[in-house]
């Protein structure tokens, strides 16, 4: 057998697997025998691990680009007619390749973490390497033995089976890699926390070290989820972006826990509290990213039976998750007595309390989503009975908590650490309360009565006002004290208080997202109508007229296109041309939504069936404020970027004594 590129990739990946074991052994021995040389060897093994996995991924990309159908994975997920972009993204188009991407990310982050933190954390380093190498080992063993993307196919087919047409879309092309960036990013904070638990030094060290890793992972995860929603919105054609589908829930759970972690870590950093809570949150977040990967990748969600078809994979994933859970939570129990808080809550109206309430609520949502997602599987496995837990359930249970969180988002940044007198709090929130009251009055005036709807709208107004007020306060203080112009003051504050303002900007973005969800969730209008050429339908003040129905062809698919013209107040505005495509190789039909983003919302058209006598079933939606969600995401990204640009240790308040180097050994 001659050496092919794919074989080379397989050899590299297998070698990387062996290197993980080597790194673990060397790192443990470096502690046992106090040998720095062994630790360096372990680090270099992880660097080599990254090089080898890069080679492994590169050979698979090469196989896709050159359409090497002797590789089974390529034959199953590519095609000679597939555009180059999708041949590249097909790498993560199915099970085997996406796990390889996961492992490559982990190798990249491991290498980056070792390179960045090597000097700062010599005592934790062996255990950080052990943890990351062990996770990597778990994934690589799975890839090499149970889910090998390099397997060859004989006889070599003349053409491939094509990439799943749903994935032939720029939106989905970038959803998984960004989402995985978030998933895998949480492995680094997890490794730091595990290392500090093993060393028995559960102080500030790990929290300050991983602040930016956590924020980076959170930002990537947020972006991945938003990309997924955006893709679902314009590709799946049911008029929404979030369906409480188990696959979506799988990515939401780590986001919820990660959001709680991000906030709760600040309490440990500033107030030396919540130690147990933080290690619990970081371990839970990481376990939920594993669960998310496995839920989506094991096929268990499609049906319990798909899981049983390949019991090896399923059992391995469950086993892996179980081991990670036992080790993670076991470490907390083992070190329980070391995790006592130094500080204590001093007032019910303090930032710490608000953040605690925030994490408790977020965890309740995460637990609800977890139970709602896994419960039907459990019932089916144990009783054989089939149950559904879908959107109506989640909306009933989760939305009220989310509305509470929306209000809470205004509190934590406004109330100082340790506490604030109730009268002052009330005074501080005068403007937000006024805006909220105004919103409630407006809602009642236009006939909205549902308490949750009214509260949600009031919450958007309240939190937006409070967040903007906090920004204004910071800028005004600098403006008055520094004698600089407002603009200058804003510039100075943005440059100096990057974490504070980054956080406030993120909050503002989240409020925009909430506004978009409230608008599209509560005020969507839609019409499902049968139309002939020339028929019109009125929706949200627009008149949508069916103009034409025609055939379309493409090398990759064939299909039909409907052309609608849209007019308002007698003025013709634009055309909408949704399509239905048929991909012959996979024998799959997809719908291509036509949508137009307008100031108040989106006009959204989907093609349904056509009858032989030329009538088309069309679904036309008016989705108010949907684009606020995407705009909100951009604001979140901006704020997170600002916050990420500040190094945790570089700036300390000059007035306060420097914090004790708690848990940081003299190194």
């Amino acid at each position, binding site marked *: 057998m001659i050496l092919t590129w794919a074989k080379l990739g397989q050899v590299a990946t297998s070698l990387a697997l062996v290197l993980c074991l080597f790194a673990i052994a060397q790192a443990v021995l470096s502690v046992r025998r106090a040998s720095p040389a062994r630790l360096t060897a372990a680090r270099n093994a992880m660097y080599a691990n990254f090089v080898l996995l890069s080679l492994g991924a590169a050979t698979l990309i090469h196989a896709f680009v050159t359409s090497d159908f002797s590789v089974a994975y390529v034959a199953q997920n590519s095609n000679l007619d597939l555009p180059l972009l999708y041949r590249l993204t097909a790498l993560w188009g199915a099970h085997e390749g996406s796990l390889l991407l996961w492992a490559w990310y982990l190798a990249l982050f491991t290498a980056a973490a070792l390179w960045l933190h090597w000097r700062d954390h010599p005592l934790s380093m062996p255990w950080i390497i052990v943890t990351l190498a062990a996770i990597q080992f778990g994934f690589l063993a799975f890839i090499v033995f149970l889910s090998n993307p390099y397997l060859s196919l004989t006889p070599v087919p003349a053409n491939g089976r094509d990439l799943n047409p749903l994935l032939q879309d720029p939106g989905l092309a970038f959803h998984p890699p960004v989402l995985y960036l978030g998933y895998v990013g949480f492995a680094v904070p997890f490794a730091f926390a595990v290392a500090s638990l093993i060393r028995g030094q559960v102080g500030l060290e790990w929290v300050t070290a991983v602040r930016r890793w956590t924020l980076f992972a959170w930002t990537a995860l947020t972006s991945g989820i938003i990309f997924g929603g955006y893709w679902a919105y314009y590709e799946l054609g049911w008029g929404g972006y979030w369906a409480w589908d188990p696959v979506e829930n799988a990515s939401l759970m780590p986001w919820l826990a990660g959001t709680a972690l991000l906030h709760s870590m600040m309490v440990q950093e500033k107030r030396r509290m919540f130690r147990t809570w933080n290690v619990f949150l970081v371990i839970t977040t990481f376990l939920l990213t594993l669960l998310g990967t496995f839920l989506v990748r094991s096929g268990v969600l499609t049906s319990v039976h798909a899981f049983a078809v390949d019991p090896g994979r399923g059992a391995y994933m469950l086993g892996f998750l179980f081991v990670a859970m036992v080790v993670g939570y076991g470490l907390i129990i083992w070190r329980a007595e070391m995790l006592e808080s130094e500080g204590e809550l001093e007032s019910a109206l303090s930032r710490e309390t608000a953040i605690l309430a925030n994490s408790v609520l977020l965890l309740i949502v995460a637990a609800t989503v977890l139970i*709602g997602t896994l419960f039907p599987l459990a019932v089916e496995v144990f009783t054989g009975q089939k149950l559904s837990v879908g959107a109506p359930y989640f909306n009933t249970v989760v939305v009220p908590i989310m509305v509470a969180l929306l209000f809470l988002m205004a509190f934590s940044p406004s109330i100082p650490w340790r506490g604030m007198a109730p009268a002052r709090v009330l005074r501080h929130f005068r403007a937000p309360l006024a805006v909220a009251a105004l919103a409630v009055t407006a809602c009642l005036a236009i006939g909205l009565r549902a308490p949750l709807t009214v509260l949600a709208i009031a919450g958007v107004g309240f939190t937006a006002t409070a967040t903007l007020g906090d920004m204004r306060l910071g800028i005004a203080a600098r403006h008055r004290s520094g004698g600089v112009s407002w603009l200058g003051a804003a510039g100075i504050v943005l440059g100096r*208080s990057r974490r504070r303002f980054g956080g406030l900007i993120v909050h503002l973005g989240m409020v925009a997202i909430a506004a978009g969800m409230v608008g599209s969730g509560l005020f969507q209008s839609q019409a499902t109508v049968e139309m002939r050429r020339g028929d019109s339908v009125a929706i949200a003040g627009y008149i949508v007229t069916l103009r034409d129905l025609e055939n379309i062809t493409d090398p990759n698919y064939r299909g039909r296109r409907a052309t609608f013209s849209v007019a308002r107040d007698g003025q013709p505005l634009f055309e909408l041309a949704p399509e239905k495509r048929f991909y012959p190789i996979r024998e799959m039909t997809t719908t291509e939504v036509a949508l137009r983003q307008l100031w108040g919302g989106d006009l959204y058209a989907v093609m349904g069936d056509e009858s032989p006598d030329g009538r088309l079933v069309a679904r036309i939606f008016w989705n108010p404020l949907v684009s606020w969600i995407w705009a909100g995401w951009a604001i979140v990204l901006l704020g997170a970027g600002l916050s990420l640009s500040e190094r945790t240790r570089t700036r300390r308040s000059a007035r306060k004594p420097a914090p004790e180097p708690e848990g940081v050994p003299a190194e």
Partner: protein
Amino acid sequence: MRHVLILIALLLAAPLDAGALVGEDPQEARVREVATQLRCPVCQSENILDSHSGTAREMLDLVREQTAEGRSNAEIMSFFQTRYGDYVLLSPPASGPGFVIWWIPALLAVGGAGLGLVLVRRLKRRGPAAGPLRNPLSVRDLEEMEP
């Protein structure tokens, strides 16, 4: 409002084309309300309104028929429940094994509230915190309120 729209539409459409203004049936709103609560039995977690499958179409037609007959939402849902089992309800009934997922979030919420109460109680017992807490915030504090 609808009439005005129709009028506008007719005025608009007339010079452009000979088509008619088609509208959604007023009962469709209720059909939608019910249909989004029912799961398409042959798809992956889609409701029967969003699904394109034949089964979902037939179920949707049944919902339309029954809505037109003046049956209530609950009656229509229980019709489908007896026909397809609990599986068809996207929000599981609290009777049967489904009670677990309704009770757990409630218990968690009670637990969370209990935790809050314990913390506040402990605070009250200790008395209000002394020290810089009630002092007015300095300019720097206001500017930074460092998280």
